[in-house]
């Protein structure tokens, strides 16, 4: 930017060079005129006065403002934004009031540097503003922001002497009234409700005091308990977490076992049902077989008995390991058999 600065200096110099001669010329002209017009010097004084007076005859009011005009101290009119005229100073006085601008008052903290990462002044410095008694006689730290705008310029300018001071006092008193009727728990968890109620109450107070101010919004910052008490409040939260954890753990243990047990139970029952079906079916089968056999047997009892007996023997005998046939006449067979040895041989 250095070159820019130099350029500017140069420009200034060139203008300065041209300036003084012009002034000199003017004086020359004035001197010349003195001869031509009687009372010329007076005319110049009058002209200067006229210029001064004339320049105080108009004023511009910004887009977000209105102009309030007083004549000899008495309010006469309010003007809209734009170029406005008035009687010269000494007679009429114009005050601009930014009616559309939103003003901000902070309680319990101060913004040091607004921006992407806003910095706040240390909380303890403004603790007096935010320290409050709650309805259950506990102590809470309640910081908040009041946003307002001027809605009645006349009241704002003339009805109250120290608008800002009274506004802050009224706001603090109102907020303490609202917080004073709530428990510490409500103060911490129902900030929105407090903001709404404080807004309504404060507007009423402001209207009564005729401050000419409209509350735009009351925004609660993080409400808390004093620092000394915070650990114990956190302890409660931790205890709640702990409680839930214990319950979940117990539920986990429950869920680990019960659904499986239910499955097992169903299995046991189904197995029993299977057993029942099997037993009955078998019985019915056996019975049917027996009855069918019996029906046939009835037709020829003797021969069937024989056949059944002999059939069975036919089945059995080949399966047997050793068979001994004893003759009636030979009585002493048993001593000849060594049962143990046979068993051993088999192995």
């Amino acid at each position, binding site marked *: 930017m250095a070159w820019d600065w130099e350029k500017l200096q140069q420009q200034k110099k060139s203008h300065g060079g041209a300036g003084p001669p012009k002034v000199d010329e003017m004086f020359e002209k004035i001197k010349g005129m003195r001869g031509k017009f009687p009372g010329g010097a007076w005319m110049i004084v009058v002209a200067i006065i006229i210029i001064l007076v004339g320049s105080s005859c108009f004023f511009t009011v910004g887009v977000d403002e209105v102009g309030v005009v007083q004549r*000899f*101290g*008495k309010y006469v009119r309010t003007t809209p934004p734009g170029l406005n005229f008035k009687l010269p100073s000494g007679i009429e006085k114009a005050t601009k009031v930014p009616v559309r601008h939103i003003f901000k008052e902070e309680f319990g903290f101060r913004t040091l540097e607004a921006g992407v990462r806003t910095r706040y002044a240390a909380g303890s410095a403004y603790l*007096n503003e935010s320290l409050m*008694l709650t*309805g*259950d*006689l506990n*102590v809470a730290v309640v910081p908040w922001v009041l946003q307002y705008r001027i809605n009645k310029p006349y009241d704002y*300018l*003339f009805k*109250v*002497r*120290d608008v800002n001071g009274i506004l802050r*006092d009224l706001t603090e*008193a109102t907020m303490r*009234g609202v917080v*004073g*009727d709530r*428990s510490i728990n*409500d103060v911490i968890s129902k900030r929105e409700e407090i903001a709404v109620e404080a807004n309504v109450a404060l507007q009423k107070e402001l209207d009564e*005091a005729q401050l000419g101010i409209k509350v735009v919004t009351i925004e609660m910052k993080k409400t808390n308990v004093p620092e*000394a008490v915070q650990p*114990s*409040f956190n*302890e*409660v939260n931790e205890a709640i977490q*702990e*409680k839930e954890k214990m*319950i979940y*753990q*117990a539920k986990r*243990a*429950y869920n680990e076992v*019960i659904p499986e*047990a239910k499955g*097992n*139970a169903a299995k046991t*029952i189904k*197995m*029993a*049902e299977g057993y*029942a*079906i099997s037993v*009955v079916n078998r*019985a019915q089968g*056996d*019975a049917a077989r027996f*009855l069918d*056999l019996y029906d046939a*047997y009835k037709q020829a009892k003797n021969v069937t008995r024989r056949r*059944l007996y002999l059939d*069975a023997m036919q089945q059995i005998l080949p*399966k*047997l*390991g050793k068979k*001994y046939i*004893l003759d*009636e006449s030979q009585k002493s067979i048993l001593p000849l058999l060594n*049962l143990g040895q046979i068993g051993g041989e088999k192995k």
Partner: protein
Amino acid sequence: MKVKFLWIFLAIALIAVYSSAFTVDETEQAIITQFGKPVGQPIKKPGLYFKIPVIQLATYFPKNLLNWDGEPGQVPTLDKTYIWVDTFALWKIVDPLKFFETVNNLTGAQGRLDDILDAAVRNLITSFPLIETVRETNRNLTSLSMMVDQQKIGGSLGKVTMGRKKITLAMLAQAEPKVEKFGIKLIDVKIKRVNYVESVRKSVYGRMIAERQQIAEKFRSEGKGEAKMIEGDRDRDLKRITSEAYRTAQETKGKADAQMTLIYAQAYNKDPEFYSFVKSLETYERGLDKDSYLLLSTKSDLLKYFEQYEKAAAVK
């Protein structure tokens, strides 16, 4: 020469007009004093006014709402709690003449208001328990402790019979007649801040901590209790489910066994002897294998033909 006199006269007239004219602002009221003594009626309406130059002086007083901010002071409440009370009041000068004669200026007024309002604040704060100053109504407070113990909170705090608003109104009523003689009208008295004094604050913090810890302990114990309950449920449900299954299974089996027995009985009752014959044969077939020895007598039915075929027929 005549022209010069005219100029001088004009100049004097201008100065005279200029020094005799004065304006009263929208926010102001004025009285005219002559050698320090007020003259005529006070001027309450804004605009351009005239007075006698040099000997008369205009004294201005604010007409709009003024703020009185009290020094925060230590006050005990009826229940002997020491608190800091910071109050403020809104007031107006309604009779500038009286105001001028009695307190003269704003600083003087501030001093008188300090005396009167401080006394009123002190009187009323000390005649009520703390809760009256803090609370406005008797609305229900929801609190964590309420979940723990319902009666405790309502009992220890007491009922609000006045409330902050009525107390400040009483302050106003008490102070108002006293400031009237100064030409002052009190519009409102308000409590800006109420706080515990340092020593009380510490014990309050202690109480708050103890209260929280008790709640925390309650939660922990609730957690343990509920966990135990669930453990109990688990045990009970497990046993119930298993035993119910066992019972159902046994019942089913029993019924089946009974049915089976009935079926067998019905069938075998037709000829028990034949049943035992058939069953015996079946048992032999199943029960005998390679490891079995068989000693058969030639007398047996099976081998009766082994010796001779004739005799056997005869035996039978």
